[in-house]
């Protein structure tokens, strides 16, 4: 009973925050965005804070997190005295990217001045785009992220004020990776909402990296949602490096629609973070679309990492392939749910899924659940999940060759992780991520070596 009351109070409190700040939240935004808020709030009220009772959040109960927070919401961008460019520099040698900075969910415009992108490419704050690129935003905003079916999506839609807007016109190839750096920086505990909209036209090519960081040791909750439209024949890679301190709850939603013949790679590398919940939804909405979906999570202490994927095979002859791995140390916990739906008319579908996990201690815990719903019989589908330990026999073998136990363990963990890292197609990026993962496994601070930012402590 007490629990129910708490839940109601939490929802009511969030409702009050919304009501009290309605004017500020909606200011400067278009009707499309603002009109979505009220229905989304009603959906949120109906679903409540996601917790064990919600089948989709079985492995990640967020009720306590929301009950206990009384974090500041920033309804307008914080003013920083120091230029973020001075604080943050990710100059991995020879790793040349288009840098996009987002601070506490707000697009950092100062960083975007004088940037040159290929012709027709638009990269700007969502706030600006809703006015300046009204047609595009109206066409795509809220179309993939359905507030009615997920409470975090609903909450995001209620509070969305800014984020990144990217438009890549047809036949445009962006060779340099786009590096989107999300920074959390606040003197007090902060709740952040970020909303991104990315539209990649026909026959486009781009590689997009999301890097999630914390700059100050406060408590953070981040609700970061991205809608991503991928046009015909497009080739898109999305990499995500989650590297926030353990007082952060990083709740992400990535909604993708793929048109015919498009190719997608997503790879989510979770290095640090208190609670990480990644919702990933891929709608294969054109024949011969292909998606390779990967994730690697390294957790220790009391960390919790939960990946929830939903792959919708909506058209014939598409292929999806999922590979998720977790290495769990100390009393960390993890979850993986892989939902696949093959529509009745989506014949010749190929859908594969694998989730492998290594527990390093008795206290670590992993929950894994495949959910395949296949509505026609002309498909190739497979799924497999394992939860195991470091192979003692392999460990001994390495030791008999003169490799000490600690190093041998690291070699085996790295070998386990490497299968996911091998899916990173950008060489320099793969080398960088390899290094980060290696450092992380060694228990060293896993920041990019020349980065001025200490994102762990």
């Amino acid at each position, binding site marked *: 009973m007490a629990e129910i009351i708490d839940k109601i109070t939490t929802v009511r409190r969030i409702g009050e925050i919304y009501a009290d700040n309605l004017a500020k939240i909606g200011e400067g935004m278009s009707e499309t965005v603002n009109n979505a808020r009220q229905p989304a709030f009603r959906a949120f009220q109906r679903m409540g804070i996601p917790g064990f009772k919600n089948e989709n959040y079985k492995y990640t109960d967020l009720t306590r997190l929301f009950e206990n927070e009384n974090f500041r919401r920033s309804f307008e961008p914080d003013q920083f005295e120091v230029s973020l460019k001075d604080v943050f520099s990710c100059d991995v040698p020879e790793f040349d990217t288009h840098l996009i900075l987002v601070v506490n969910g707000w697009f950092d415009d100062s960083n975007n001045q004088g940037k040159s992108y290929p012709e027709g490419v638009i990269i700007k704050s969502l706030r600006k785009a809703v006015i300046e690129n009204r047609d595009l935003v109206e066409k795509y905003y809220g179309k993939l992220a359905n507030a009615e079916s997920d409470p975090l999506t609903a909450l995001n839609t209620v509070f969305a004020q800014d984020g990144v807007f990217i438009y890549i016109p047809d036949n445009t190839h962006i060779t340099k990776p786009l590096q989107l750096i999300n920074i959390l920086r606040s003197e007090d505990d902060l709740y952040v909402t970020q909303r991104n909209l990315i539209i990649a036209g026909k026959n486009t090519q781009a590689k997009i990296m999301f890097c999630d960081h914390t700059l100050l040791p406060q408590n953070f909750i981040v609700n970061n949602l991205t809608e991503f439209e991928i046009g015909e024949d497009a080739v898109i890679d999305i990499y995500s490096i989650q590297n926030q301190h353990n007082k952060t709850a990083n709740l992400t939603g990535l909604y993708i629609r793929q048109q015919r013949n498009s190719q997608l790679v997503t790879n989510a590398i979770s290095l640090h973070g208190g609670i990480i919940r990644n919702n990933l939804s891929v709608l294969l909405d054109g024949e011969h679309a292909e998606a390779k979906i990967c994730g690697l999570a390294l957790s220790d202490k009391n960390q919790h990492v939960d990946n929830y994927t939903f792959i919708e095979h909506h058209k014939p002859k598409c292929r999806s392939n999922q590979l998720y791995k977790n290495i769990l140390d100390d009393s960390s916990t993890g979850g993986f749910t892989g939902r696949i739906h093959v529509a009745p008319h989506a014949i010749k579908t190929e859908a594969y899924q694998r989730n492998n996990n290594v527990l390093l201690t008795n206290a670590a815990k992993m929950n894994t659940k495949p959910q395949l719903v296949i509505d026609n019989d002309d498909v190739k589908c497979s799924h497999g999940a394992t939860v195991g330990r470091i*192979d003692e*026999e*392999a460990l*001994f*073998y*390495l*030791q*008999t*060759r*003169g*490799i*000490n*136990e600690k*190093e*041998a363990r690291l*070699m*085996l963990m*790295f*070998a*386990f992780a*490497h*299968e996911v890292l091998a899916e990173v197609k950008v060489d320099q990026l793969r080398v960088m991520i390899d290094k980060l993962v290696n450092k992380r496994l060694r228990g060293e601070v896993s920041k990019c070596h020349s980065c001025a930012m200490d994102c762990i402590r």
Partner: protein
Amino acid sequence: MLVIKDLYAKVEGKDILKGINLTVNAGEIHAIMGPNGSGKSTLANVLVGNTNFEVTHGSVTFNGKDLLAMSADVRAKEGLFLSFQYPVEIPGVSMVNFLKTAVNEHRKYRDQPPLSAGDFLKLMREKKAMVQIDSQLTNRSVNEGFSGGEKKKNEIFQMAMLEPTLAILDETDSGLDIDALRIVSNGVNLLKTPNNATILVTHYQRLLDYIVPDFIHVLYEGRIVKSAGKELALELEEKGYDWIKKELGE
């Protein structure tokens, strides 16, 4: 080089070794033979430091040092090597990375600087040619998808890379066809010097046609019950182990 005195060991509470005495000097090749379950593999595993086996009594010194006090990796760096009966597959660990780490760990132990990438590859090429291992195998993960014969060749290749002073070959001949057996034996013979020693653990006399031992020991129920020269192998091949059992009055 190796002195085993009154060694007792058990696994999962069961006594397997019951008082082994054995001395191996530099330049010697010893063969340990015996029926199934006599403790041959246990002896090999105890010597290289497999913690699944518990030593309950006795001592082992290796070049004057207490072997049993060392961890498995230190034993290796002191010059001990085991060619496994069933080498384990390690997906994701590349042969190159594995060997480079192993070789450099050995070098570090001897206060030598790590090999440069170039020198390492050169060393690997030389040793590969020496033991006639297929060059493609070293581009793969350790033993992953290797055939039985390839795994055994890979063991000998590793031995060539690490140059142990004492190599224990556990049933190296099992699962080998005659060509592979010749290649593996040839490798072992090439690696032989007056300064190192070899212990062959085997069921059959077959291997001893290729690698000729100086001494043959028969292990039976956890003890060495007979030691003789290489002619003993032929006698065993002819008469089987029952003959020994009879001699022991069983």
